[in-house]
């Protein structure tokens, strides 16, 4: 009997660190891991259409969640196209017209380069804890890792996804899966994160598979090729003048 009791106490002690975490602590740690002061990355977006796949390559610079600048490198048709996000405003520069166009309204719901991502997906910059009520649903095993399953329900109006479910890796505080729902409960998008790698003392999934549930096709893979964290980025990168340079 004593042995059984000891074993139970031991098991409880082993589990305690995980169970003791609240949903908001998990999300806070995930945000802390994922959000560096600055990020400079080179990435590929492989868009799997019904007729085949195409790859778009870009380089991005971001500072916090509010400022981001992306320059498309390939293919030839996209080369020179630039995107600047400052707070809730987004500009796109096209070398073909030599114009910077600010996107607003329903245009933000359009797909980026025919992918499964919308401009709105790129615009979301508020902390999850500020806009969602968090609830820990339990634990599971995913991609061979123990994960927490969290449910996020909007506590502010006007979000693109009023409900989310996130599977968070317990080792690295990295999301491994995310489901985005409409208010009606319909699944809108599914994100799968894989190939988690260490960048300094942080961990990032280097492949993200986006699947728009409302679109036919095989989804979009976002592949992180290079990532530099907390490096200084000149201020002019987040100024509209960068677009026409």
């Amino acid at each position, binding site marked *: 009997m004593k042995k059984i009791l000891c074993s139970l106490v031991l098991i409880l002690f082993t589990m305690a660190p995980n169970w003791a975490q609240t949903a908001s602590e998990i999300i806070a740690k995930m945000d802390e891991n994922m959000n560096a002061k600055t990020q400079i990355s080179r990435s590929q977006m492989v*868009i799997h*259409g*019904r*007729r085949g796949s*195409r790859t*778009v390559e870009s380089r991005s610079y971001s500072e916090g969640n509010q400022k981001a600048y992306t320059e498309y490198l390939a*293919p030839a*048709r*996209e080369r020179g*196209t630039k995107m600047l996000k400052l707070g809730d405003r987004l500009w*796109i520069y*096209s070398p*073909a*017209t030599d*114009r*910077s*166009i*600010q*996107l*607003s*309204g*329903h*245009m933000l719901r*359009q*797909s980026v*380069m*025919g*992918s499964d991502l919308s401009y709105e997906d790129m615009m979301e910059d508020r902390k999850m804890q500020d806009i969602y009520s968090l609830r820990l649903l339990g634990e599971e095993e995913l991609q061979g890792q123990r994960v927490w399953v969290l449910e996020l329900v909007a506590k502010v109006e006007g979000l693109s996804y009023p409900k989310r479910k996130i599977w968070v890796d317990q080792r690295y505080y990295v999301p491994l899966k995310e489901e985005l729902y409409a208010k009606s409960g319909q699944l809108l998008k599914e994100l799968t994160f894989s190939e988690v790698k260490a960048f300094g003392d942080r961990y990032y999934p280097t492949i993200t598979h986006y699947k728009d549930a409302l679109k036919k096709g095989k989804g979009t893979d976002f592949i992180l090729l290079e990532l530099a964290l907390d490096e200084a980025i000149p201020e002019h990168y987040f100024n509209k003048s960068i677009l026409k340079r």
Partner: protein
Amino acid sequence: MIYFLLKGIWRDRSRSFFPILVTAMGVLLTVFLSGFMQGVFNDIIEQNARLETGHLKVMSRAYAELASQKPNDLALYEADSLLAHLRQEYPELIWTPRLRFGGLVDLANAQGETKAQGPANVTALDLSTPSLGEAQRLNLQKSLYKGRLPEQPQEVLMGEEFARRLGIELGQSFSLMGSTMEGSMSFRNYQLVGVIRFGVVAIDRSSLIMNLADAEDFLDMQDAAAEILGYFKHNSYSVKQAKIIAEGFNAAQADNPDEFAPIMLSLRAQNNLGQYVDYANNMSTLIIGIFVLAMSIVLWNMGLLGGLRRYKEFGIRLALGEAKGQIYAALCIESLLIGGLGSFLGTLVGLGLCYYLQLYGIDLDGALEQSNVMMPSVFRAKLTVELLYIGFIPGLLASLLGSMLAGLGIYQRSTANLFKELEA
């Protein structure tokens, strides 16, 4: 006998004038109503054909499944050779590709900053090949509110409400942002050369019309086509002919497993227009049926009354020795002649009215100015073969039936009572 009866009808006009007039009016209204309804339904279908469906349309199978979303990424490849094939195989039709897509119009101020923006619905037509008749088909010249049609590359037309909202003037340039057929971002500058007003709010507030070549460049769709529309050269939709052509074309593609293989759909098979055509025909038949029935009852009643009014005359004729059968036959032939004359006059005037409205129509342009529904602004009648008999036969038979029924009384009269009745 007929000559004798005609003489009677002509001399005793109090007996024939009103029956002929009533028959003629009834037949006229039936013919006119039928012709006008046929014309209006036909115009609505033709409007759909001109703007959207064509008499026949060729798309890829994958595109056809989602046609209402205009998924240009599922367009047909090697469209030039397909177009050449269609033109060779089906020369009775004019084949023309069209493109539709959405985009964002951005008008810049002097500093190059966004001054105004608006979402655009772009329609691209082959305006550089006049023999295809696209400008006439969409009535562009008449709808031109100001400016001219595009002649050079990068020239476009814009809906009047759209242009007013953006505050753009003729000759000004603007940027259009959208996606290529593969989803890449696409940007081009265009010059506004004309403002159009179709009178339909839904079109006028967001439409942009450009030349097909410009749209192909914008969408990166060289040698690709989203929709190839076919129009009968005689300009009238033939259900049977369209069905035969579509079935023949699709049968030739039946063994092709490619989801991007071409498929041909007739007007009836698109946008639930088949259901609409059936519904329109059923409604038309029902309304005309009710009208014909009402007219028949009136004419029948008139024949009946006419027969009863002549009760005394028949008594005298019987008393003078005329056979009952002969009187009955004379009565029937007489009503047939009256019915025939009335129906002939009614059909003639009805056809004349229909012909007039087929040529000139009723212009409701002003009434439909703020309409949200895509309707033709001029309602026209249509002359069809069935107008020759749709009023004529009921007009002829109804009065005959009335007289035949009233005439049965002749056989119930006995010679013994005749003189008593006449004395009274």
